[in-house]
């Protein structure tokens, strides 16, 4: 297993190179003086010279990439326009809110998709299964931003059960942690639902397919031949095998998870990295845009790494490889 993990980590490096290269390339499609990509344009001539040398702006573009990479590795993505603060600081400030949102969605999706998929596989073609199938098709077809709008319309504007946006009620008097939690949860509910409805669909279908495959395996027949009750056969023997591929799928769902977060944060005014990103896009705040592009892809790559490590822990064939 250690070999597997080291292998995976080594594969990360060219991947990160690729990401930074592509981001750099995109960034240089932007019009204007490259200096502007890194600082507030209204700056003293001495600053300008320092910046030119720090970012290698008087060098050929190839070298510029390495200057930029060197800075990026140290967490220096330049200074955002207008806000006039280092990009990294701004991002780090907003990141926790995004992690809270995506983390909650992620966990909920896991907790719901696995039982849903398993039960529909076991009760194949029952009314439950058909209902779940319709639900998954619908979930894949529905635009998440539309779900968000409808949720706001019904539950916020018409019924008033949940707030329409923001992370905390500015007027609330949060004297203790519990009320603070409740406050955040109320604000978290609608955005989470809008993202989960869409994300759940693919995971559930996949889990169902995986379970259906496993149930046909020989070792399931052996378990029955040993006299094991059906519940043990399904929920011990089959389930333990069927959840393994989900781990990989979870890793693969990260880019869509983040994309969904960007949209949900914008609609619900959730103060996270996604909303920051959309604001950056509209204000053509290139240093900020680039920083967010790189940080989010690095997070996704790391997430995939954790998924792979998780996979190696959960599948004994990888964990205790052939001797």
């Amino acid at each position, binding site marked *: 297993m250690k070999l597997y993990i080291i292998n995976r980590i080594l594969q990360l490096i*060219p*991947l990160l*190179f*690729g*990401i930074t*290269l*592509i981001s750099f390339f*995109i960034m240089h*499609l*932007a*019009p204007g003086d490259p200096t502007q990509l890194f600082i507030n344009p209204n700056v003293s001539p001495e600053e300008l010279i320092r910046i030119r040398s720090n970012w290698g702006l008087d060098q050929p573009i190839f070298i510029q990439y390495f200057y930029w990479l060197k800075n990026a590795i140290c967490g220096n993505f330049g200074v955002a326009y207008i806000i006039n603060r280092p990009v990294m600081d701004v991002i780090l400030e907003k990141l926790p809110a995004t992690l809270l949102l995506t983390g909650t969605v992620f966990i909920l999706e896991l907790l719901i998709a696995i039982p849903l998929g398993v039960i529909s596989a076991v009760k194949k073609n029952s009314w439950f299964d*058909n209902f779940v199938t319709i639900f998954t*098709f*619908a979930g*894949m*077809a*529905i*635009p*998440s*931003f*539309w779900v968000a*709008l*409808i949720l*706001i*319309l019904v539950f916020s*504007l*018409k019924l008033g059960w949940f707030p329409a946006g923001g992370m905390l009620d500015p007027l609330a008097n949060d004297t203790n942690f519990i009320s603070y939690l409740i406050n955040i949860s109320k604000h978290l509910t609608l955005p989470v639902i809008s993202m989960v409805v869409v994300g759940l669909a693919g995971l559930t279908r996949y889990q169902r397919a995986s379970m259906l495959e496993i149930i046909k395996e020989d070792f399931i027949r052996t378990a029955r031949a040993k006299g094991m009750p059906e519940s043990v056969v399904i929920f011990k023997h089959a389930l333990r095998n069927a959840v393994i591929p989900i781990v990989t799928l979870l890793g693969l769902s990260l*880019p*869509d998870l*983040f*994309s969904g977060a*960007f*949209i949900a944060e*914008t*609609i619900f005014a959730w103060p996270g990295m*996604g909303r920051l*990103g*959309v604001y950056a*896009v*509209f204000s*053509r705040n*290139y240093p900020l*845009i*680039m920083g*967010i*592009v790189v940080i*989010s*892809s690095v997070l*996704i*790559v790391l997430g*995939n790494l954790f998924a792979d490590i998780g996979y190696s822990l959960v599948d004994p064939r990888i964990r205790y490889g052939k001797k």
Partner: protein
Amino acid sequence: MVKNKLALFGCVVLLIMILSAVFAPILARYDPDDLVDDPLLAPSASHLFGTDELGRDMFSRAVFGARISLSIGVVAVVISLTIGILIGSVAGYFGGFVDSLIMRFVDAMLAFPTIFLILSIQAILNPNIYNVMIVIGATSWMGVSRLVRGEFLSIKQRSYIEAARSIGCSNSRIIFRHILPNAMAPVIVAATLGIAGAILTESALSFLGMGVQPPMSSWGNMLMDASAYMQDAWWIAVFPGLLIFISVLSIYFVGEGIREALNPKG
């Protein structure tokens, strides 16, 4: 079987959508950009979907929007297929170092949160309907390339390829005349799913304001300001989204039908 009925249903709905788009000028009672009535009128006989916040007929906008959304979907997928098939066949055919290099690049592209990547690119180029198609196409080819590569890797082992090579066929000839036609089945299914995905992506982009620009109407940008008015005018939020949902759903049903049809039984 149930699947067949759904596929049929999907075909029918899709046909209705396509025909509506094609015959939009006839179906639409009003010019979609004209202010024809009071704003925020509820759905009625004269305005099937009501009027929007400026007083334009929503049904007419929706029907013309179908043109935009559907054609963007198709063009974007054509672009992504072209890129994906090209890259996938080169990687799968040549294998080895070329394959590894290309697949690293594919992995890197897959690591970006797609919507944000597109948004960033759109921020640099000024968004209009043409670059929306191109950018969506340029960021969604990765799945197809993997598929094609996989097919190539398995097909090129087969004996008829050996035979072709032994009689002196050039590489490109082998790729295009011998391997590619056999690799097409999963690609067709992927193409249908791709159109659905492209429609969803375009609608999200237009909704955020970085896609199709008003006054041109796409289902996505019709929802752009919906949140401000929907409390008093629910039709502004409901109809465009419903149309997106129904078209994408029908495409999925048709895609499932095609997948069942192309797979031999068993």
